[in-house]
């Protein structure tokens, strides 16, 4: 069955290129996010929000990381997520 994705449906996970770059502590598979908000409440840094514009493949407002720099990689978001949407990376000193 044809599935058209509305343009607002956010970040897809991409294999990161090597070398120096702005560090991204999280990967979020947005099209699997159901916008339940559990991670938003779980995040001690309050840096996760539900997308306000368009919906993803599943018809939900997916979560977004507002401030990568503030993320401590504590992974609490990942531990509460029912849809295993997150990959969490350690903040390596190099970055």
């Amino acid at each position, binding site marked *: 069955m044809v599935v058209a994705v509305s343009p607002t449906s956010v970040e897809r996970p991409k294999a990161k290129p090597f070398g120096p770059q702005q560090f991204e502590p999280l990967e979020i598979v947005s099209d699997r996010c159901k916008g339940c908000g559990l991670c938003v409440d779980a995040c001690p840094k309050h840096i996760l929000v539900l997308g306000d514009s368009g919906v993803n493949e599943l018809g939900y407002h997916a979560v977004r990381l507002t401030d990568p720099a503030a993320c401590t990689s504590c992974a*609490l978001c990942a*531990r*509460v997520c*029912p*849809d295993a949407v997150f*990959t969490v990376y350690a903040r390596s000193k190099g970055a």
Partner: protein
Amino acid sequence: MGGDAMSTLTADTRRIIYQRPSMLTDRSSHYCPGCGHGIIHRLVAELLDEMDLGPRTIGVASVGCSVFAYDYLPVDFVESPHGRAPAVATGVRRVRPDAFVFTYQGDGDLAAIGTAEIVHAAARGERFSVIFVNNGIYGMTGGQMAPTTLLNQRTTSTPTGREASSTGYPIPITEMLALLPGVTYAARGSIADPAWIGRTKAMLRRAFEIQLGGGGLTIVEVLSTCPVGWGMTPAKAMEHLARDVVEVYPLGVIVDRQKAATPRTAEA
């Protein structure tokens, strides 16, 4: 696949703190937003990874919202009629002594229609693990009362709230099972917060280890949420779980007969 999730390779140089377990299939689930089943599936998948159980596992899926467990946990699975998973698992276990066998059952499935099957699997001390997801409601059929539903809770079959006078009391089935010598381990966890999610994972690990060690029946009741059935947002549901549900269903290990900390039984 399998092996410790940490050690799994990635095309990426950054050290991974957490990632989706390899024993969770790469597809989105049919569960409602914020449904506890998703979290519990993830815990089971993490353990299958960490304990490298995938290749020897035979799972028994019950009838409830989790009926599709086999779509998310890539191990051999047999579907059971509603409530009969412990009987089905008995059949599997008896002819496959070397397999790792578990059932994944909801509270309507295990504590209502399946009461006789779980009680007697426990009485026989069958060597499999029961993952008992208690969300206090019949999720799949539209949020009717379960035997585990709290008093005064509104459901589609108790529109004015559950009344003891006509529907009785929430049933402490795991405590009842713990009376049976055939039950080697019985515990109750929860998914209300990251801490309890971690403790619940430890309970599941203990249960799995006891099974692998040849122990009798092991059961972990996991208090879970059904935001849709409860008519609450996922967040509110978690609050309710942490505040009210645990009042009726105390958390912790109920019996661990390999630690020989047994309650009163008919053994003697």
